[in-house]
């Protein structure tokens, strides 16, 4: 037979070329798929980061300027094993926005305690807001006028933005049921927390839900008006509490007493150097910096995000390198 066909060399060359082409294409395809997965993960991370930014911006833009603020962090067995917590109050309390009904006045308030918590073990960032009122039942005998006992009676108490918290356990102080606080007297705790209370620490945590997963790192910085800042991360166990203050700048500290309450006006004469630094506002947080890292196990991609939020109040944070 004299049938035309490939020689062995031609056949080998053809097979070799086809193999090289296939190998190159498979390799490029695999790289393309990996890049697509990585890009998809990055797009998802940026979208999630923007969600966190929007959520935090919404809360912090309505931050109650005179709120108490709690920051906490724990480290159980080394970095990456603890948690980071931020608690503050947002919303508004409008003393002029009230209704009159049956001889009583009712104050309107939409103040809410808000908690942000990152837990390293679950890599979850969760957020919770308390109910916008506090409802508690007096569990022990309480006779403010000396005659009527309010035992077992239930009260609705609007949240107070300025709540001085205990430095030892500020969380539990959120449970303190304060009876009709006034500007002259911060108020007296009339009842311990009970299970039926609304708007307390338990309620706040019940409402806490995860907003983001795969958060491998989370930390924030609170920057005061005088540019000093505190870093809160899970490299150490810390607990900081910043007392609330009055809108005019008065502040109550642990040294206050009935005889000499130290929430008096600070010296604010413009011809003295104590014009601003002595004001409580000078030492209120003015800027919140957040940093978190999102990871995607499937594509081994990760991205660290940094955001800063100007808190309501007097402007003027100087960068640390510009501090006088």
């Amino acid at each position, binding site marked *: 037979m004299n*049938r*035309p066909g*490939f020689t062995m060399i*031609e056949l080998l*060359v*053809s097979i070799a*070329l*086809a193999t090289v*082409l296939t190998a190159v*294409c498979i390799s*490029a*395809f695999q790289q*393309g798929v990996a*890049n*697509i997965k990585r*890009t*998809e993960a*990055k*797009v998802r991370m*940026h979208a999630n*980061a*923007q969600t966190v*930014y*929007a959520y935090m911006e919404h809360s912090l833009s309505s931050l109650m300027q005179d709120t108490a603020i709690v920051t906490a962090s724990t480290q159980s067995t080394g970095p990456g094993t603890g948690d980071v917590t931020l608690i503050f109050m947002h919303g508004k309390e409008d003393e002029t926005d009230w209704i009159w009904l049956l001889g009583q006045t009712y104050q309107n308030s939409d103040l809410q305690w808000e908690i942000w918590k990152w837990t390293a073990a679950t890599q979850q960032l969760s957020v919770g807001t308390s109910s916008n009122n506090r409802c508690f039942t007096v569990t022990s005998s309480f006779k403010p006028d000396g005659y009527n006992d309010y035992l077992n009676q239930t009260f609705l108490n609007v949240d107070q933005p300025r709540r001085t918290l205990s430095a030892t356990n500020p969380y539990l102080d959120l449970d303190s049921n304060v009876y009709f606080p006034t500007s002259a007297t911060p108020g007296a705790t009339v009842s311990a927390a009970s299970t039926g209370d609304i708007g307390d620490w338990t309620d706040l945590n019940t409402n806490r839900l995860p907003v983001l997963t795969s958060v491998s790192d989370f*930390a924030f*910085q609170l920057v*005061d*008006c005088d*540019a000093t800042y505190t870093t809160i991360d899970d490299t150490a166990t810390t607990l900081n509490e910043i007392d609330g203050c009055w809108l005019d700048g008065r502040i109550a500290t642990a040294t206050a007493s009935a005889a000499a309450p130290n929430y008096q006006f600070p010296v604010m*004469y*413009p*011809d*003295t*150097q104590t*014009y*601003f*630094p002595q004001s409580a506002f*000078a030492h209120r947080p003015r*800027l919140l*910096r957040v*940093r978190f*890292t999102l990871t995607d196990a499937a594509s081994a991609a990760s*991205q*660290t*995000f*940094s*955001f*800063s*939020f*100007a808190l309501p109040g007097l*402007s*003027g*944070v*100087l*960068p*640390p*390198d*510009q*501090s*006088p």
Partner: protein
Amino acid sequence: MLVQSVTMPGIRSATSRRAFTFLEVLACLLVVGLGLASVVAMVYFGIVKSQKTMAASTAMVTAMTVAVDVRPFLAPDVALTWNIDPRYNFDDTTSLMLTQKAQGFINGYLVERIESTTKADVVAVDTPPGGGNPVVYARSVLVKVSVYTQLNGPIIASFNTRFVRQRSSP
């Protein structure tokens, strides 16, 4: 019985069929290769477009972050890239417009921040009452932030803002 083979018109018999030449096979491989290369190029085009979409998603909030904070809380691997010009003199009592420039990587972008300030409020606070050297108490600030995908890359977001910066201590 003798069976006569029937040849259909237009169809060559197996014995007379002509095979591909080597040149034809190479040409075929070239066409297939070009096709595959086109597919791969389209895949990468899609990736690049996705990356550009990603780049635009958080660019604006990044610009807003840097606008309010010249020194964000950066990850350690990019913190060293953040470069801030030497501080300007907050107490400059002239009407000069002072500028400060900061630049660095944040959230996967290259960000440039230019701050221009001028005195806004001058108070004599040194020696009360009613005397002493004038001290600038507040400065009017204009901040312009530009966000780029990379060094010498196209700008993808820009944000301008104004505010008054008050001094925090004398």
